[in-house]
């Protein structure tokens, strides 16, 4: 198995990361399909309750031609529909399953991105299996760190808001809140970069969690501007995709076209996966350029042959050779993880 050594590439990590995503579109497709399937399960309780109440009622027609919010509110208020919590909980549970599934399959994605060829399925799952416990450990560590940092930042933001609402400038609390959220977003993005690099290092360098955390921490801050810029840009792309998709849905899809609504909403969600995978591509690209310890090319050892005086011999005419095998070039070999380690 070979991976691409990208040190000499002239493209940016951003372009390189996008290239990885584009070469491995099937991952996006699979994750989208997984999300859709799980969400289908998550919405089944909602759908069953709604079917029982609405399918034979002409009142429900008001939802088809336009969207009468009153009908939806009345539906949710019906005792036979059940509590909203009962409808929400499956969605939350299956959302959690998707989240765990992402954690499970992500090592394969990293491996695939680092590969110069289409990663065989067996290698994909081998990477997943090999890194499962590392990812779970990292998930816990990152969850604690991100949770604490987010808690502190949101707490500070809340305190600022509490003070700001006492101001006579009505826009001040909103402005400060937006600035606060932007700061929180940037800080959390930095943490995300750190953990993405850690994940890349764990998978591609076959290193443990703590060593990877340490290495990626140094790199996160040594290249912060470049990496953060890439992450912010991809997030802006995601926001633009979401807003664009919703606008398209609202403007271009006829209210009664359920197929149209489904197609547009799913395309939006599918596209929305790209920016996050792009970020992972950026992490892999960065890892290849800066975190990979290059192996010194192996120079073939030429055996020292003692010089011996040879008597001149009459040359014997040799048979004509069709082709000459070229000298093997020295190759760059990347340290591949030991599959049995």
């Amino acid at each position, binding site marked *: 198995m070979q991976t691409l050594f990208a040190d000499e590439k002239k493209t940016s990590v951003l372009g390189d990361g996008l290239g990885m995503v584009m070469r491995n579109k099937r991952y996006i497709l699979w994750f989208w399909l997984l999300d859709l399937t799980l*969400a289908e399960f998550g919405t089944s309780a909602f759908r069953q309750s709604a079917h029982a109440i609405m399918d*034979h009622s*002409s009142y429900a027609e008001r*939802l088809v031609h336009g969207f009468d919010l009153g009908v939806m*509110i009345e539906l949710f208020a019906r005792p036979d529909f059940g509590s909203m919590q009962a409808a929400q909980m499956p969605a939350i549970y299956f959302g959690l399953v998707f989240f765990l599934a992402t954690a499970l399959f992500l090592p394969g994605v990293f491996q695939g991105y680092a590969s110069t060829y289409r990663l065989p399925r067996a290698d994909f799952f081998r990477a997943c299996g090999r890194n499962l416990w590392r990812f779970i450990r990292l998930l816990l560590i990152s969850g604690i760190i991100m949770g604490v940092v987010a808690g502190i930042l949101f707490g500070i933001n809340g305190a600022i808001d509490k003070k700001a609402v006492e101001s006579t400038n009505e826009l001040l609390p909103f402005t400060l809140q937006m600035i606060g959220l932007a700061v929180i977003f940037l800080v959390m993005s930095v943490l995300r970069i750190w953990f993405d690099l850690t994940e890349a290092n764990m998978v591609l360098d076959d290193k443990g969690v703590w060593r990877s955390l340490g290495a990626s921490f140094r790199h996160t801050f040594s290249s912060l501007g470049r990496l953060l810029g890439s992450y912010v840009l991809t997030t802006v792309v995601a926001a633009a995709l979401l807003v664009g998709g919703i606008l398209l849905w609202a403007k271009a899809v006829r209210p009664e076209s*359920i197929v149209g609504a489904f197609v547009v909403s799913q395309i939006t969600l599918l596209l929305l996966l790209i920016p996050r995978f792009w970020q992972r591509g950026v992490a892999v690209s960065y890892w290849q350029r800066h975190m990979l310890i290059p192996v010194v090319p192996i120079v073939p050892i030429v055996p020292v042959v003692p010089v011996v005086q040879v008597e001149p011999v009459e040359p014997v005419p040799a048979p004509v050779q069709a082709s000459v095998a070229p000298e093997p070039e020295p190759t760059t070999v990347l340290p591949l993880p030991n599959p049995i380690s």
Partner: protein
Amino acid sequence: MLTRWNSVLVTVALALIMTPLLRIETASAAAQTASAKAPAAAGTGSIPDTTLAINSPAPMSERVVHYEIEAKYDPSKHSVDATEVLTYHNVTGQALDHFPFHLYQNAFEPKATFVRDSKLMGTRDTGYADWKDKYYGSEDIKSIEVVGQGDLTQNLQFIAPDDGNKDDKTVVDLRLPKPVASGAFVQFKIAFRTNFPETQARSGWKRDFLLGGQWFPKVGVFWHGAWNCHQYHNTTEFFADFGVYDVKLTVPQYEVIGASGVEVSDVNNSDGTKTVTYHADDVHDFAWTVSPRYKVRESTYQAQMGPVKLRFLMQPAHWSQAERHERITRDTLDRFEKFYGPYPYKTLTVVDPEPGSAAGGMEYPTFITGDSSWFEPEGVRLIELVVEHEFGHQYWYGMVATNEFEDAWMDEGINSYTEVKVLDSIFGKKTSVLDLAGITIGEREIQRLSYIGVADRDPMAQFAYAYYNSGSYAGITYGKTASVLLTLEGIIGEDTMGKAMRAYFMKYRFTHPTKEDFLKTIEEVSGKDLRWYFNQAVYGSQVLDYEVQSVKSFPVNWYEEDKKEKKKEKGSKDDTVYQSYVSIHRKEDFAMPVEIEVRFDNGEKIREHWDGQSRWTRFAYVKKAKVVSAEIDPDHTVQLDRNNFNDSYVVKENRKPTYKLSTYWLFVTQLFSQVMAWWAV
């Protein structure tokens, strides 16, 4: 029987004793007073018959009170020191020996009934999870003198007529040594201090803003032979007599001020304050507001009785919304004058209160507060909803001054009904509140939805503080009343209902009508006995829910149909005769006649009428067609029905609505998953 004879003897004895004393009074007073004390002489003062603040050459109400108040506002303490001269005209037909006064601001104390009820019943404002100093409000009478009777401050006694709460100081009673004779005037000279709380119940301060509502000692209403002066509860509003107000407000010069009535003068004082004088005619309350940051927009509306000066006091960040405020005010004025009757006042002040305050959405005579924010898209019509609602109170509370303590549905509910009519007329039935990105909702639906969750809790006709909780109060008082009156349109006709509402307004404006005055007006105008409806809808807590329980069609000769099917050639005409049944079920205890529309697969429609008295009924048909659907109330006039989904049954199921909602739900679920996965892994 013994008790009654005793009463007669006592009455006769008292009458004999009092006869010489009563000679100076009118004959009617002599007949009606039962007091042993000597009534005072004709009394002092009079009520002015000014018309400065109304577009009418003569007074429009029976003026009972004249308040002359001089108040100085201290913004650093959020307090007012004031003197009040109240001239009261005893038009009760009997001598009065005591006068109860409302001291509303005393409601904001931890042990007061208002706060206690809020903790028990919930509230739309402060929840009082904990008590903070800024919640305190108070209204202290420093002294009270009755002209001709001296200083009677010592006679003041707090009373709690509703719940006996000894810690409630929202009503104080003043007993007079000399009763005020019928027809006489009496003058009270009161010195008081009001400390406002941070805004609660649409009164008080927020930052440097103040809404001065319910801020001065206010006499109760002598109504139906007794004083009506309830304590202040978290779900009650107000009740007062009509009269004239002359109010001088002294505030810092930097303040922008607005108030009920017309501004008479504005004089700068040497101490950095200014005194602004207001005059109001034919009103029963007076409110004011100050903020140094109001931006003012003014214009004139040509009403049926004359010009009305519109004044909008806007928050600087909401200045772009000022035009919306004016537009909805003009449209609402136009509809109210067309539908119900003229607006007689010369002014209307619309206040956009301080953001984050509990001062939004309140009504006072010629003075209302809206509720807006710096960002509100045009399709979200909350600004319009609030301004329309509060303006509507100029009619249902302001002019038709019902007892808000006892019949809250008559001001809030009737106002909610007219709110539906007016907003429907301006924005359309289904889009009057929300019309954004294809998502819509109308005000009539909002009113209905607010009621269906509490449909069986309380009747409309009960005291406002006697509801199960504030949710039930809101759902029944606002939502159910609006739904009851909209349903009534279906019974007597929309035009007739419109005429009845106009007749009610024109007949009872500037009076204190009762619920029966309203209900009888509708019966008179419609010429129908509607007791069966009012007894259930207004006086009862019956719930209305009809359902199409089943729809069945099968061939009359069903036992032969299998053979027939096999023989039937493709494309041949189906001449099968079907036996069809449509069963209608009255699920709850509210019985009323309903229409049912039955549709057949040959396009035929049949309208059925059912009196709704029994629990269920069944309609049977024998036709060469099968029933495809049945719908109760096909004209959608029965707003009271608690469940609209079971009002119809379509034989062929239609999964589109469910699929559409599911698609939305699916999107939200997936998006949630993706966002979670974005950040967490």
